[in-house]
């Protein structure tokens, strides 16, 4: 007993240090549970309002870049409308998807576990698992919401999986990111017999209830075939520039509940 006390007194400093580190590591590893809304993230009211105030000051600095991307987007949308007009297809269909614009108020895009915070939240009908796109293409998925703010898990977060397809032949796979460069993501599950080329466009597959089909994601920058599984490992150059992202659109799927009910009823039947 006396020895134990002596030991504790002698190494008290290191013991306190280890206790602190244990607390930190518990925080780090509970944070990996991405679907737990946690009070410590930046959709937290106080920090988000500070960063929003700051943004209203600094947004003038990036005004030119923002304008350019809006002009480019406008051009693309106009071309799309023209196409619909030519083909005589009614442009407004009952697609079941609704778009809400939001401003990015903070972006961590240089680390390993990246996050964005946007200035719309549960008050604006946002909730977890909604898709987020930018002017150039897919950005990510909403991971938690407070009343006025929401955290977005971008493609460049190791926990994000997005179902995508190759535009020209409709083969689909899953897009993920494994660290390193924040412009390149990894596309897997494309079988080795498919004919692909560098520069082929990758778009969303529409197989999940999160994104509608056909939203641009990126283009193939390089690929290699895994000899043992005969599947491709494709590096995708993302269209979204995460180093310069100032506003986004959140996609609200108005049929989400109905789609989920059907999915759940199937899994319930399987359980029986």
């Amino acid at each position, binding site marked *: 007993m006396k020895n134990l006390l002596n030991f504790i007194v002698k190494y008290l*400093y290191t013991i306190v240090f280890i206790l602190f580190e244990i*607390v930190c590591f518990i925080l*780090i590893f509970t944070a990996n549970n991405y679907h737990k809304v946690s009070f*410590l993230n930046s959709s937290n009211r106080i920090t988000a309002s500070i960063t929003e105030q700051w943004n209203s000051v600094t947004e003038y600095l990036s005004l030119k870049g923002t304008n350019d991307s809006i002009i480019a987007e406008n051009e693309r949308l106009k071309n799309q409308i023209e196409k619909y007009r030519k083909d005589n297809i009614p442009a407004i269909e009952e697609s079941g998807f609704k778009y809400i614009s939001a401003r990015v108020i903070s972006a*961590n895009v240089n680390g390993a576990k990246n*996050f964005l915070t946007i200035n719309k939240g549960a008050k604006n009908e946002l909730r977890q698992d909604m898709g987020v796109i930018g002017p150039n293409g897919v950005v990510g998925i909403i991971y938690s919401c407070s009343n006025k703010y929401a955290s977005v898990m971008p493609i460049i977060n190791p926990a994000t999986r997005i179902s995508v397809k190759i535009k020209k032949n409709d083969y689909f796979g899953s897009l993920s990111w494994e*660290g390193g460069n924040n412009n390149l993501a990894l596309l897997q599950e494309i079988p080795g017999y498919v004919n692909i080329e560098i520069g082929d466009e990758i778009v969303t597959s529409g197989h999940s209830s999160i994104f509608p089909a056909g939203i641009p994601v990126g283009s193939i920058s390089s690929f290699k075939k895994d000899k043992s599984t005969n599947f491709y490992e494709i590096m995708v150059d993302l269209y979204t520039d995460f180093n310069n992202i100032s506003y986004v659109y959140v996609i609200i799927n108005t049929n989400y509940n109905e789609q989920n009910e059907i999915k759940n009823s199937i899994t319930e039947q399987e359980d029986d």
Partner: protein
Amino acid sequence: MIKKNIRYILLFIFSVLVQTLIFDRIYISSYVSCYMYMLFILLLPVHTNKYTVMTLGFILGISVDIFNSTQGLHAASAVLFAYMRPFVLHAFAPRDDYEPNKELSIKNYGLFWFIKYAGSLILIHHIFLFYLDIFSFSHFFFTLLRIALSSVISLFFVTLGHFLFVRE
């Protein structure tokens, strides 16, 4: 006494806000990220109780974490930084030891001493932070290069920040 404490509270707020509102938002290159919020711990008086320093390190790290949605990452690194501080101070102690009322500044102990003191602590902090962040050795050399370049940039900005705080 109160006046002195207010200076350190201001330094704390300054470190956290400059880090999260400026350095975490500017993009230099994928090789460089600057972390200078540890400036607060570096400049605490020499004879501050070492448990106090460690607790302050934890609070500092958590504050940066809350802004960045990185739960615990900066807290863990800042606690290590605070833990190592007495050892590094001891290792680089001048011949006639530190004087209690002198600030840990370039003016009092020289530029070379400050670079040794701040540089080694920043390097330890960065190695821990970057490998904990990716939590694997898969991009080992890329990360090593990032650590080396980022440490140099961080040291530069810490030195600049120190000039803002230290009085003539």
